[in-house]
């Protein structure tokens, strides 16, 4: 089975803040990490390979330093990695990102593409399904379990808001995965060595035959108009008194606010 996993380098969002006074981002010392969901996507690819054989290739689109996450994936055991990097890719929204990744996937060839459920910087969850549309293949989002695989079909479980569904999916296809699916393996020593030595090919727009008007800023229908700090939370109050009194005040307050 020929598997492509899409991984993204993201800032560790829990450390990103806005200064309420200046409306500017505080990001001193915010580290870059592999998008946490994508670790599960890599693990899913490796497990499938262990089961049915084949090859796992990771791809990312990003600036040259995004190579770090590819090396991380190699240290976990993937076979190949490709970095899609080109100044012309800059400014891509999900549409242009999905277009670019799908062009690379076409060039590589595949039976299955695995993405994370969403990237934690933008939280859009759009790139996977959009890629599937560009490639004209079926997709299933929020995969929480892979029950069986053959050459032409997979049976998987999709996590919905109020239930889960067992689904038969025809290959080639794309899935996006949730954390519940698996536990990502730590890098192995051999993997770390391989990661250090690996020569990671870089593809630009011409290498994947991407059309200029569909990549980067030009290919992006959405624009960020501005950013601002979230509105501050209203009043805060610590309730005092005995436990009895605390609970009574709480219930009264919640009634007053029509919460009960």
């Amino acid at each position: 089975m020929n598997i492509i996993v899409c991984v993204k380098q993201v800032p560790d969002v829990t450390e990103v803040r806005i200064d309420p006074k200046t409306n500017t981002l505080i990001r001193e010392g915010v580290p870059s990490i592999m998008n946490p969901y994508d670790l599960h996507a890599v693990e899913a690819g490796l497990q499938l390979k262990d089961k049915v054989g084949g090859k796992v290739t990771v791809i990312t689109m990003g600036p040259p330093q995004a190579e770090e996450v590819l090396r991380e994936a190699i240290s976990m055991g993937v076979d190949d990695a490709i970095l899609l990097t080109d100044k012309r890719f800059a400014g891509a929204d999900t549409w242009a990102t999905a277009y670019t990744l799908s062009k690379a996937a076409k060039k590589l060839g595949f039976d299955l593409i695995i993405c994370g459920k969403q990237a934690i910087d933008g939280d859009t969850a759009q790139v996977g399904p959009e890629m599937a549309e560009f490639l004209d293949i079926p997709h299933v989002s929020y995969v929480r379990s892979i029950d069986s695989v053959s050459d032409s079909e997979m049976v998987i479980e999709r996590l919905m808001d109020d239930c889960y569904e067992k689904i038969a999916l025809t290959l080639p296809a794309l899935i996006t995965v949730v954390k519940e699916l698996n536990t990502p393996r730590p890098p192995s020593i051999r993997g770390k060595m391989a990661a250090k030595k690996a020569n990671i090919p870089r593809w630009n727009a011409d290498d994947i035959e991407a059309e200029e008007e569909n990549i980067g800023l030009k290919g992006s229908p959405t624009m960020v108009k501005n950013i601002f700090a979230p509105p501050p939370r209203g009043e805060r109050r610590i309730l005092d008194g005995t436990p009895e009194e605390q609970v009574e005040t709480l219930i009264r307050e919640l009634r007053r606010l029509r919460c009960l």
Partner: protein
Amino acid sequence: MLIRIDIEKCTGCGTCVSVCPFAAIIIKEDKAFITEACTLCGACVESCPENAIIDERGKEGTKAEEFKGVWIFAEQSRGKIASVAYELLGIGRKLADELKSELCAVLFGPSDEVEELIKWGADKVYYVNSQDYTYLDDELYSKTLINLIEQYKPEILLAGATAIGRSFIPRVAARLKVGLTADCTGLEIDRETGNLLQIRPAFGGNIMATIVSPTSRPQIATVRPRVMKRGEYKSDRTGEIINISPLKLKGRIKVLERVEDTSFCKVNLQDAKVIVSGGRGLGSPEAFSILWELASLLGGTVGASRAAVDEGWIPYAHQVGQTGKTVCPKLYIACGISGAVQHLVGMQSSDIIVAINKDPNAPIFNVATYGIVGDLKIILPLMIKKLQEGVSE
């Protein structure tokens, strides 16, 4: 470069450096310099006190005039229309009135509740009454919606930021090459341009961003459930139901089975008005039964921190936070949860937050509307007792 610095004007004050979400501006020899990391997001442009950042991102002409009307996608599950659909009608009605255009709903799959969409504000309903649409088939749903959009050309399309909406709407946007903004919490019409201003949290809710799709139509957004208010219900409101014939595709996915184990039914965190959430402070799986009792008294459901899920006290489906669900109920009661930032990003937009924790320095108190410093093993049973007895006004 589509965004550049006017070196003559730049004073090297560094304001743009701190505004840039991607660390793409540096100060070199007292002048700002845009590096390769720039994604051309434009956040810096307005920040410059000297107007030294020049935005040359071109705006192509649109054929925006051809597109009219506001559409909402009304999702259903087993024939029951999701409550987010009525919320979309609420905000959709407002936008349509402002644009002086009509409001239409799109409904896929059989439902007895079609008329309800009209009573809640729709002028028209495009209805595909076919069993083939009972479950989400992303290709079938998206192709059908694409056909409708190409035929009727709406200006705005809203769907719920739910499992269904977030899964198939991206295919629609990809095919039509139009902008799509995920998980919006605010929507307004820009008075100057007529564009839809799509406001959404990013970076785990630590910042908010306004997104526009100036050059493509329809403007599509998914909208976070439980944020928008429903409109006015009028039982005598009339509208038109337009039956759309189902598409016949060679299905490439097949839903074999829908599994609703009982814990799942109760977990619809995104729809819950009240969530009682437990963390490591509960100390044991048994303690969760107190949470369930309180939740059912309040008409809500139970959530959890990752620590509680990792302990195996409750399934992952209940997890709230960065790697769990993002929720915004009317009332969120955090019991024995310290308030790690990964948890906060999943619940800090709840209307009212109550924290019960024995550590007065727990960060959860920073976001709590009401805080009780105390032992949950005492507080929770008391609360249940008082609620059952009824506390005097």
